[in-house]
């Protein structure tokens, strides 16, 4: 707890220092230094305390409402881990990326405020996860929701960036409104603001309308998590934000929605099975639609954003299944579902932030994140290429990387769900298993597209051909994250036990069978690890033999996709459009794709162009019409704003008279 406080202090110090030195190069050193110091101290705090420990602290609080109650328990520690790890990596990467670049540009140097909000975001995230009081939680939530708006709009001279930042702000506040409504209702009914008191009131049955509370919490936090159809801000803000900010948001920030949901579920009365199925259902929808949309994207960063929607969907699927297990008295399913979800959350945080940092390096080197402008980058920037492909394989759930362990644990929960009483739950469990498999397949295709088209093959543009590898220093942050992930893979069973502490602390969890189930999953993870290590050794050995054989006989390198033609060009390769064209034929609807083939007539057409355009259905068909209707309504209300001053005074007069008459009659 002391180290937690110290890390908060470092964040605030970093924030203030970067403001104090705003406009100077120093701000670009002090701000990140505060973030890195705070994060490392926080990590040390996590490492030095046993995972199952529960700490509480209460500080003086000047407000008439609530109390400044903070605490750390297994769930808080688990969710803090990615915040600290990604926070440190993103700060280092951002400091290097912004060094000197802004100063060279014309216009004011905004790095001081940028690092101020970066530190504030980290402090807000940490505070949300330590809050043990509804009022403190909401204040921290608001701080944490506002900061990304300023972080994401660093390059606000571009119209697209401004629009993305506004989209984010609107979504964040629609979600926050529901979260505030949830806490206000619960706190009003319970007559207390502390989490423990709220949970106590829920157990005593004093929270009326628990279903309404559940929906308020679920939809409110789903907006932060980015579940379909509340995901529209993700594909907007991630491509617009600088790389290190996107890394922090995808790795540290969206998890806070899951954390909030987790806490809300702890506070609410024990979950009913339908609540679990609701979360799982929306999770499946998000996972499938998210990964299909990712497959259709032509922009590397937007593809990664949709992949986040998919992974958040998978996590919610596991969470929902865990709740079903809890409601149906199947502790093995409960522990495996919740454990798998949390484990996958950690993996997603690490892999996705690594991918965003790599994408940022690509953007710096080539000047574009559009796949049609990339190609063959693995030869020019091998370290970034290797890391990207590694992280892509991890996030697609390939064994023995830890992404597979989380999905395996969730699959075990679904297998346990096949034993549930009743036909419907069994069918639903089987369907989840099928969905998980399908999502895994599509994810592999999406990252084959992202990694393959960007890093393999031949360069599609002169800029890609001339791309320069980043300096060794710029690789520091990605390598730090990659090292963490490799460690996680090696220590997957231990990490699963760490996750298990949070699962076992969930109210209503039967510890003995839950622990046994998690132990079983850990054993499975170890087996996977051994097999994986064996396969890696085998593949490495074979590669070494091949390299030796090649060196002995002499080799000739041909262009990729040259296919033995005399004059191969880069245009012969698969492009972003042609890669997804077969899938687009089949799944154009759910992928939101429209394809158009322009071809000259005749048997030997001279010219042919394929367009595959991806649109977001939720944005185009749901939110845009909705907000346009609201805008029309607001315009209609403007008839009272006619500019006639004396009539405005008449409004005031009439209001006063009516109020007096109403109050006194």
């Amino acid at each position, binding site marked *: 707890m002391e180290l937690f406080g110290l890390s908060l202090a470092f964040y605030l110090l970093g924030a203030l220092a970067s403001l104090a030195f705003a406009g100077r190069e120093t701000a670009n050193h002090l701000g990140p230094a505060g973030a890195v110091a705070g994060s490392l101290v926080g990590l040390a705090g996590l490492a030095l305390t046993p995972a199952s420990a529960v700490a509480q602290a209460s500080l003086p609080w000047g407000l008439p409402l609530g109390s400044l109650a903070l605490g750390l328990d297994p769930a808080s520690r688990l969710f803090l881990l990615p915040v600290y790890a990604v926070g440190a990596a993103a700060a280092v990467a951002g400091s290097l990326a912004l060094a000197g670049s802004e100063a060279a540009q014309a216009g004011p140097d905004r790095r001081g405020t940028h690092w101020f909000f970066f530190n504030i975001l980290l402090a807000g995230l940490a505070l949300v996860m330590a809050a043990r009081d509804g009022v403190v939680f909401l204040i921290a939530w608001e701080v944490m929701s506002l900061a990304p708006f300023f972080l994401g709009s660093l390059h606000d001279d571009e119209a697209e960036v401004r629009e993305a930042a506004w989209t984010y702000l609107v979504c964040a506040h629609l979600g926050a409104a529901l979260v505030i409504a949830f806490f206000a209702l619960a706190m009003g009914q319970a007559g207390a603001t502390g989490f423990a008191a709220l949970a106590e009131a829920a157990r005593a049955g004093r929270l009326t309308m628990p279903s309404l509370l559940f929906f308020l919490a679920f939809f409110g936090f789903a907006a932060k998590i980015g579940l379909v159809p509340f995901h529209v801000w993700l594909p907007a803000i991630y491509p617009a934000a600088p790389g290190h900010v996107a890394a922090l948001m995808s790795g540290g920030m969206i998890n806070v929605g899951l954390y909030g949901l987790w806490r809300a579920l702890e506070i609410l009365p024990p979950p009913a099975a339908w609540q679990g199925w609701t979360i799982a259902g929306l999770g499946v929808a998000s996972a499938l639609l998210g990964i299909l949309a990712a497959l259709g994207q032509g922009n590397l960063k937007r593809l990664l954003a949709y992949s986040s929607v998919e992974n958040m969907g998978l996590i919610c699927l596991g969470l929902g299944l865990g709740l079903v297990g809890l409601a149906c008295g199947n502790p093995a399913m409960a522990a495996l579902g919740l454990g798998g979800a949390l484990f996958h959350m950690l993996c997603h945080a690490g892999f996705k932030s690594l991918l965003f940092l790599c994408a940022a390096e690509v953007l710096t080197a080539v000047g574009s994140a559009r796949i049609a402008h990339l190609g063959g980058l693995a030869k020019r920037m091998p370290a970034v290429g290797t890391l990207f492909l590694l992280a892509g394989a991890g996030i697609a759930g390939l064994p023995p990387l830890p992404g597979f362990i989380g999905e395996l644990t969730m699959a075990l929960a679904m297998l346990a769900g096949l034993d549930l009483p009743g036909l419907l739950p069994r069918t639903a469990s089987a369907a989840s298993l099928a969905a998980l498999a399908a999502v895994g397949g599509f994810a592999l295709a999406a990252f084959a597209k992202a990694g393959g088209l960007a890093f393999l093959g031949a360069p599609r543009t002169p800029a890609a051909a001339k791309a320069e590898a980043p300096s060794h220093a710029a690789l520091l942050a990605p390598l730090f994250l990659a090292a963490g992930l490799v460690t996680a893979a090696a220590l997957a069973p231990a990490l699963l036990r760490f996750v298990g502490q949070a699962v076992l602390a969930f109210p209503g969890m039967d510890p003995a069978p839950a622990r046994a189930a998690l132990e079983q999953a850990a054993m499975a993870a170890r087996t996977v690890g051994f097999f994986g290590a064996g396969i890696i050794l085998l593949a490495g050995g074979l590669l070494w033999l091949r390299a030796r054989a090649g060196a002995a006989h002499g080799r000739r390198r041909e262009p990729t996709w040259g296919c033995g033609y005399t004059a191969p060009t880069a245009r012969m390769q698969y492009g972003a459009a042609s890669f997804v064209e077969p899938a687009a034929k089949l799944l154009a609807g759910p992928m939101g794709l429209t394809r158009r083939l322009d071809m000259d007539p005749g048997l030997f057409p001279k010219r042919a162009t394929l367009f595959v355009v991806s649109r977001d259905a939720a944005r185009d068909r749901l939110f845009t019409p909705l907000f346009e209707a609201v805008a029309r309504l607001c315009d209609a209300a403007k008839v009272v704003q006619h500019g006639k001053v004396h009539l405005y005074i008449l409004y005031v*007069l009439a209001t006063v008279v009516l109020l007096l008459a109403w109050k*006194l009659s």
Partner: protein
Amino acid sequence: MAAIQSLLVALVVVNLAYLAVTRLKTLTRITALQGVLLAATPLAIAGPHGHGLILSLAVLAIKGIGFPWLVARTLSRLEVNPVVEPYFGFNMSLLAGVGGLLFSLWLESRLPFPPGLFPPLLFPAALTSIFSGLTLVVARRKALTQVIGYLAAENGIFLLGVPLAAQGSVWLELSVLLDVFVAVFVMGIALHHINKTFESIDVGRFCSLRD
């Protein structure tokens, strides 16, 4: 006691007169008359000595002489049509004023006042003054009439404060007077600017300022 009652009745009549006159010059004179009547109220309530006397003299100087003179000066400098231009007719305005008087009488019967604080009829007279002033603001076209309406409304508020001033908050009243004095000054300047910008002091032209 009879003196204060007669004063208050006179004030009510003056309030209604605001709404019936058609010349700006007459309107200015009515403002002066109301100022003089107001100056007499502290004397009628507290007697001609001490704080009441100071307040009375200050009101006479500011509301009885100062404001009407300022308004008359502005009027002569602006060189505008000397007729009051109404948005809706004088009869309707008068009807609204009578409605305000009735509403005030009803309100007096409903509001819980500390007994003995207000002499009878003072509260309705004050409130009618506020309503008449606001009616003037709402129903007249020229910005100058709006200034006079504002002054009438402020006079009503002042009248509400007189019985309290007798209990010792005379300095508060005086400071409020100073504020109003400054406000009228600013309004005079603003009127000049409005006249210069819009080439008229018709408030209907402010529509072009809306977004």
